[in-house]
């Protein structure tokens, strides 16, 4: 066993964490498990690919790699646009589907509807892009040694830094701003939040936007490091939920901690017992933590 699993696990954990934040916010504020969250990840990656292609057609040189990275400014700019688009997709899905079901107050129906939305979106992506994987770049990146026998690529370092920045931003938003306090208020008690002057519909829109944008970031990361496929998000769905539940529903630091544990646990499992057991290890960890602390690592008993 080499320490490389730590580096690999950290990077996987960052991708899972970006997606798990949306799942955990969704669950705590809208009170349902959104199974279509994985498709936000896939949609975000394809949207980035398309916008980058458009930018590449308009501006020669936008696809040229910056420094040691595999991507050019075209993909960086496309990523910002795609994050907005994915947020908009999440909002549209809520408007067309979830908001109507929410008014009827049937949580289980909403969960099932999200499962349907997941299949529909995935099928649309497959229809539009086929199930053959595509790549942001065909260039091979050389992993640099960073000590202790671990190697990482420049892309991975940049993406880890970007993830840390996004996570710190979301955490600061939640804990230090009026919008964040409003979100926590709605998560705890929507009726009291309304009485206190919080526009609950506005909070719900913010949650979809943030969740969609972060899922897109996760998809871009997955696309740069691995590949882009219609199933990429769906395959990440179980680790996303494992991370959100492990960390304690509603807690952003919890989702990140849960994601790192799942990511590192899976990477270790690949080395110790073989790749086919990686999902099983994530769930053994989940079961273990929930037996000791049923509310998750950062969850509050209420």
């Amino acid at each position, binding site marked *: 066993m080499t320490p490389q699993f730590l580096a690999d696990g950290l990077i996987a954990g960052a991708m899972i964490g970006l997606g798990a934040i949306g799942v955990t916010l969704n669950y705590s504020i809208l009170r349902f498990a959104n199974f279509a969250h994985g498709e936000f990840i896939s949609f975000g990656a394809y949207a980035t690919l398309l916008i980058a292609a458009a930018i590449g057609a308009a501006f020669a040189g936008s696809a040229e790699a910056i420094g040691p990275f595999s991507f050019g400014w075209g993909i960086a700019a496309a990523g910002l646009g795609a994050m907005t688009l994915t947020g908009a997709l999440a909002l549209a899905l809520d408007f067309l589907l979830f908001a109507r079901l929410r008014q009827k107050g049937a949580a289980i129906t909403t969960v099932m509807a999200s499962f349907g939305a997941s299949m529909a979106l995935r099928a649309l992506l497959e229809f539009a892009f086929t199930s053959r994987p595509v790549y942001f770049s065909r260039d091979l990146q050389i992993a640099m040694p960073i000590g202790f026998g671990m190697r990482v690529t420049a892309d991975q370092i940049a993406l880890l830094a970007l993830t840390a920045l996004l996570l710190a931003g979301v955490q600061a938003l939640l804990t230090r701003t009026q919008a964040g*306090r409003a979100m926590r208020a709605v998560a705890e008690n929507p*009726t009291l939040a309304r009485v206190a002057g919080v526009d*609950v519909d506005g909070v719900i829109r913010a949650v979809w936007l943030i969740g969609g944008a972060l899922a897109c970031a996760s998809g871009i990361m997955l696309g740069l490091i691995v590949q882009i496929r219609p199933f990429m998000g769906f395959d990440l769905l179980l680790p996303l939920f494992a991370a959100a539940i492990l960390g304690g529903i509603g807690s952003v630091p919890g989702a990140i901690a849960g994601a790192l544990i799942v990511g590192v646990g899976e990477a270790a499992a690949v080395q110790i017992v073989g790749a086919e057991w990686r999902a099983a290890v994530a769930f053994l960890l989940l079961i273990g933590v929930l037996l000791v602390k049923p509310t998750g690592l950062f969850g509050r008993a209420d």
Partner: protein
Amino acid sequence: MSDAARRALEVDSLVAGYEPGLPIVNGVSIGADAGEIVAILGPNGAGKSTLIKAVAGLVPISAGAVRLAGAEITRLPAHTMVRRGLAFTPQTENVFASMTVADNLRLASGIVTAPLRVGRIEAMYAFFPDLARQRALLAGRLSGGQRQMLAIARALIGEPRVLMLDEPSAGLSPKLVETVFARLTEIRQSGVAIVLVEQNARAALRIANRAYILVEGRNRREGSARDLADDPDVAGLYLGGLRAAPMRQAAS
């Protein structure tokens, strides 16, 4: 002050309930003037809580009107009520238990413009010194009395014209009820109209100027708090044994 200007809250023939066609409040009219405490009394199931929840925008209204200082506010979204000057504190879960005292007040201060927020919060700390000492504590860890104070402070932060409270005495010891009610009489002096829904009729009539008695979703009696407290029929029939030993009305 003219009558129209004194009348802070006017509820006119209100019909409201959770299910269409099943009104819990069936044509109730009440009013509250600036600087008075109005108690809403009656047996369990009379629709007292539903009445003020409907006024606050939390229960659908099918007929009737609600006017705040003369302006119609019937069916406005609940979150806009407090900005217009109508504040409401629910009976239970009336603070955000997972947030600190300070964050509870900061959240509530969101209804006033940013430069005013800190001043309003400090004014609440001055009025409720207990809260100032506990500002870093999670609201869920406050005692029952302190929770009620925080709920009232949260409601007052926008300097409302009308403050509606749903059973602020629930779960409090008689001594704490006295303390909370004493604060309400201080708040009344600042010109706020207070609408108090209470099971604890005895204590409510002691601080109220006027009272309405509801039965089965309709107005049954109204009058000055003193007259109603002295009326043997009222005490025996509707107030859960105001004069005799306290007894609980059967839940409907």
